[in-house]
């Protein structure tokens, strides 16, 4: 009764054509990047060894390893995390659990979006103006980390908010009906059920903070330091800035050295992100609702 007409075949052909076209667009975007990553791996791979990771750069940064830069990145990430994670989670709890639908809440949401959209170099100017000059932290790990913390705050807020929102409303209602206060509900029911999701956001914050260069350039990261930082008021080297320096500022660097630095940096970021994705998938499988 419903035999396919010429028109139906035509529709099928159009659909196949567009499917192929859009699939092709995905490939156009993905293949160059995968090729580039392969080149980085091939050229940078030989540079990486235990010695590369655990020794200091020598001979005007043209030889040796990246240890002080790696350690500096860890300093920056940890200090910025200590500032942005509690603040971001608290902000997300407010937005998800308390906030009424009014103009203040809308302004907070808009501010969060804007904080994520402000160019990284403007964050750097803010860091110089606020933390280095006004609060007199000087160029130090503290100033650089706080700049990074402000910049990565939206990452924590948005992902924590999503994790909190994924807890069903019925859980909260059950708890309220027992006579619990809002905070008791949040602490005993909402947070335990969303902590893994919040953690994926924290991991993303770490990955983001580790890769940023512009915000730390003028606030606390140095091109080269002959000693390791001992407190948050010292300057430090950082991996991302080190890549910029060996790629552009130092003459006579052997070709494989910057590839090696780039590979380590990309490796850290990719491991962090894979961890966060893996976490999320495991979580989805375990959900009880």
């Amino acid at each position, binding site marked *: 009764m419903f035999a396919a007409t010429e028109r139906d075949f035509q*529709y099928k052909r159009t659909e196949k054509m567009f499917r192929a076209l859009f699939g092709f667009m995905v490939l156009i975007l993905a293949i160059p990047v995968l090729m580039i990553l392969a080149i980085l791996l091939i050229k940078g791979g030989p540079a990486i060894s235990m010695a590369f990771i655990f020794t200091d750069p020598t001979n005007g940064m043209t030889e040796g390893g990246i240890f002080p830069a790696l350690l500096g990145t860890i300093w920056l990430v940890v200090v910025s995390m200590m500032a942005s994670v509690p603040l971001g989670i608290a902000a997300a709890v407010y937005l998800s659990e308390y906030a009424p639908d009014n103009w203040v809440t809308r302004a907070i949401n808009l*501010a969060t979006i804007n904080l994520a959209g402000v160019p990284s*170099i403007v964050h750097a100017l803010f860091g110089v103006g606020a933390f280095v000059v006004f609060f007199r932290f000087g160029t130090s790990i503290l100033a650089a980390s706080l700049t990074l913390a402000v910049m990565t705050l939206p990452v924590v807020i948005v992902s924590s908010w999503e994790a909190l929102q994924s807890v069903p409303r019925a859980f909260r209602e059950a708890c309220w009906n027992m006579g619990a206060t809002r905070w008791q509900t949040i602490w005993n029911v909402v947070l335990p059920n969303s902590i893994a999701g919040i953690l994926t956001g924290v991991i993303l914050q770490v990955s983001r903070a*580790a890769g940023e260069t512009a915000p730390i350039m003028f606030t606390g990261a140095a091109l080269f330091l002959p000693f390791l930082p001992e407190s948050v008021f010292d300057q430090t080297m950082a991996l991302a800035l080190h890549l*910029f320096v060996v790629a552009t500022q130092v003459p006579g660097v052997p070709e494989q050295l910057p590839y090696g630095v780039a590979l380590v940096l990309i490796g850290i970021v990719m491991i*962090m992100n894979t961890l966060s994705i893996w976490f999320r998938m495991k979580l989805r499988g375990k959900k009880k609702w």
Partner: protein
Amino acid sequence: MSDITAATTAEAAGDRLDKNWMIDKGLQALMFICGFSAIIFVLGIFIFVFKEGAEFVAHKMDFAEFFFSPKWRPTSLSNPTYGILALIAGTAAITALSMAICLPFSLGAAVFIGEFAKGKTREYLKILIELLAAIPSVVWGFIGLAIMNPFIIKTFDVPIGLNVLNSSLILALMAAPIVTSLAEDALKAVPDAYREAAEALGATRWQMIYKVIIPAAKNGLLSAALLGVGRAFGETMAVLMASGHSINMPTSMFDSVRALTATIAAELGETPVGSDHYQALFAIGIFLFIITFVINLAADLIVRGVRKG
């Protein structure tokens, strides 16, 4: 358990000032302050960047020169000039070309991932996109410098490979995962009832996408595109390393140019705090902040329009 009972009885007795109630109110206030901090930081960025640049804007800056002169010579001893026209042109050229490359492909990719791909394929593609979005900008800059540069020189037979084309390609690849995932979110936000209605009417998948889903998601797609523009406009390290960083009014895509963001990144370290040059860089910062603020605001308003309608 006992303190919860206590709270109920206390409330029933009309006495709301018990311990749990106070903890609740206290923490609510604390959470509100943390939430409000996002607003404080945005204002703080504006105030501190403005504070450092204000003196220059108010007293030393010649508006006509600043915006319409292509001569950025802040280090000239006899007659320093602060014209950012060439920098604006550089940024505009890079942003425009990168978006011309990035937008069609990202929107197409979003349609494929959101509407055509199914099951595992879709899952893997989304993971791939998320990973690509995480590559740091300084690594992209290095890629422009070390891989794209010789590639462009060889392919197009030009003397310098660090130019508008190079930085646009890099920015396009950088912005693509972000635009794709935002656009895919916009497609996902179209209610399933629309899809079901279209299918019930006998539409093929493509007819449904073209005639129902894309029109319904067009504000979300537009806002994704705008955020992509904002991202390309504000990118710093990749542009600094891949654009050639020489002051030029670009006439072709093989010209080296200099971007607004890259200028600040390259020069801020060498200027003494409080000098004219230092303040002029902050004035550029104010300009960048205002433009990105407007772009983000516009993107937000467009999406909000969708939710209301």
